[in-house]
């Protein structure tokens, strides 16, 4: 499907279809995968592309996610361009190998349909899966829409394979909410896609038998820290690469991507910081309140790891009150990970804004415009009183409500 640049057609695609299509256009060398709800259809559609001969990819139907990521590592170490997709427990089972991928500096691209972690078993959206992997050395890109998830796949390849970076990237989109919802997507042409991602030539490869290398060798007290220092420096450099790749993508395809999205933030007094699809819902609330003359805004981080701390601090410094909404609880007894990161980022800001954290929508619990409006109401009343009433709280949730275990939700 080649679409001329000046005549862009829109397609109605689910998040997973769009991701599978982007992966097809990238045409990776190897794609090991294991099915898991809600990311299964990425794998399913990609395997159809393989069956139809639409890609040159070796598809491996492995026996578990641990094997899926292990096969990714093996293939990437052999110099291949590698991709996979998973969710929730699948990502959890990959855990051990996620660190191998980043430690070995292998530019693997993974798509995660964000889903709650067990227990109890739940197949719906929250961010506990990828947030648990936030220290695994992977670059994390969170997508608000189907279009963004699609676009992020191409950019992820470029970011991962950048010589200054050489780190794996996970592209996150909200399970069911984005993975299974149909939205209008403007795809890029196959040739344009190939041109954008370019050819991947691994600097060191196991298959380069003339220059044999060893991978994953023991590194004890002295060398280990050298490797970790280099990895730490590399992930710091990823921030500039994300900006650079985003700019190039914008020049070529007209869609703008930065480190985060600022929505009506310029003159705002209060703002919500929130990830992924829930930002869309929150923007409706922002517009509604702006129409009533309230100075409210939103910041939606796109790049979460590495954390663009200086840029976030700069964007939030003029605000009076900030609310961080986490779709996961880090179970530290001190709020969600986004809240903790943003709060830490604001420490250096002069006259720093007040901040509170709210945990919402766990396990797919609905987050509606009214919920966003309630948060803004709290923000505005905090602005008036100058005092945060409750630092951390669960919202979209009534702890007093009776739990129905025989209901449809169990």
């Amino acid at each position, binding site marked *: 499907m080649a679409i001329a640049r000046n005549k862009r057609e829109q397609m109605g695609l689910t998040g997973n279809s769009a991701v599978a299509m982007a992966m097809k256009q990238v045409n990776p060398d190897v794609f090991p995968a*294991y*099915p*898991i*709800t809600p990311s*299964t*259809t990425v*794998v*399913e559609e990609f*395997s*159809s592309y393989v*069956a139809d001969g639409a890609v040159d990819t070796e*598809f491996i*139907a492995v*026996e*578990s*996610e641990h094997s899926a990521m292990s096969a990714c590592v093996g293939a990437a170490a052999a110099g291949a361009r590698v991709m996979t997709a998973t969710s929730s*427990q699948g990502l959890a*089972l990959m855990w051990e190998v996620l660190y191998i991928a980043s430690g070995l500096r292998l530019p693997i691209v993974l798509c995660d349909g964000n889903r709650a972690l*067990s227990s109890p*078993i739940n197949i719906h959206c929250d961010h506990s899966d990828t947030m648990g992997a936030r220290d695994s050395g992977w670059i994390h890109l969170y997508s608000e829409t189907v279009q963004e998830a699609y676009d992020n796949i191409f950019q992820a390849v470029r970011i991962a394979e950048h010589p200054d970076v050489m780190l794996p990237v996970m592209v996150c989109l909200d399970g069911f909410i984005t993975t299974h919802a149909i939205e209008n997507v403007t795809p890029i042409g196959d040739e344009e896609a190939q041109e954008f991602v370019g050819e991947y030539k691994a600097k060191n490869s196991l298959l380069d038998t003339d220059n044999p290398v060893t991978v994953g060798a023991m590194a004890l007290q002295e060398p280990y820290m050298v490797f970790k220092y280099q990895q730490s420096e590399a992930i710091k450099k990823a921030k500039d690469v994300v900006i650079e790749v985003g700019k190039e993508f914008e020049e070529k395809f007209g869609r703008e991507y930065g480190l985060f999205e600022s929505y009506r933030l310029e003159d705002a007094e209060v703002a919500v910081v929130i990830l992924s699809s829930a930002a869309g819902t929150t923007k409706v609330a922002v517009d509604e309140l702006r129409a009533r003359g309230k100075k409210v805004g939103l910041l939606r981080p796109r790049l979460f790891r590495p954390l663009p701390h200086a840029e976030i601090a700069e964007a939030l410094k003029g605000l009076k009150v900030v609310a961080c909404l986490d779709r996961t609880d880090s179970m530290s007894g001190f709020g969600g990970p986004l809240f903790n990161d943003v709060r830490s980022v604001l420490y250096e800001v002069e006259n720093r804004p007040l901040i509170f954290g709210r945990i919402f929508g766990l396990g797919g619990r609905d987050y509606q415009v009214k919920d966003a409006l309630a948060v803004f109401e709290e923000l505005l009343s905090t602005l008036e009183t100058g005092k945060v009433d409750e630092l951390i709280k669960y919202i979209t949730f009534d702890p007093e409500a009776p739990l129905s275990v*025989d209901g449809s939700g169990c």
Partner: protein
Amino acid sequence: MAVPAAKQRLSVPFDYDKYLRPGKLPHIWCPGCGHGIVLKSLLRAIDKIGWEKDNLCMVSGIGCSSRTTGYVDCNTVHSLHGRAFAFATGIKFSKPELNTIVISGDGDAMAIGGNHFIHLCRRNIDITVLVYSNAIYGMTGGQYSPTTPAGSYATTSRYGNIEPPFDPCEMAKAAGATFVARSTAYHTKELEKILLQALEHKGTSVVDIIDSCPIYYGRMNKFKSASHMMNGLEKDGTITVAQAAKLTPEEIGGRQLRGILHQAERPEYCENYDNIIVKQATATKGA
């Protein structure tokens, strides 16, 4: 006129509700799926052996089969994909008096949980394992599994599966299980008897239950209906051990054997462990 005794027995339906959690039905299994038939056979076998519900623990992994634990009114654990065997080992080891059953499927037991499965068999811990074998990952949309026959179709094998399948019974036997049997959802009465024997057996007992997934496996492999599939795979595709004994390998053909395929005597793991404790405690006392 007096009703003959045999008819009287037939007229009293088995009270499944006694073993099911109120408000949990209808189950999520698709029309034509045999998992419900297997569950009913299992409940009748449990009733026959007379185990108290409070003294029964059912552990499952993830997949269609593993939804069983949501419906049965005993101690149940819906664990992780492939890990039911390890969860159950922990449970049985800490409370050997608890009658423990693992409910698994071919993807759960043979792929992601293959490692745990073989070590459960190797230890010969007193647990009964039911593998609902429908040769497909039904819950995630019909990907081929390690028991999908070579050449058959799945969403991930559009031109026919090129991987040779595992035989769960051979695997269990080789790994050390002391009771290995096979039956099908079609042979529901036979299945009940085999399950009863498996429950009675001391040591690891594995029952491979051939079951049909008409929605995914059936549709992709030209089975016209669920009954067509049951007839083809479960009725005509299998043969009892006794029948097979009278036939040549050519006459048996590709049919899978039903019945008890392996039975052996070997010390049970929890008992073995207790023996060590007793022995060491006695030795220390004596010293």
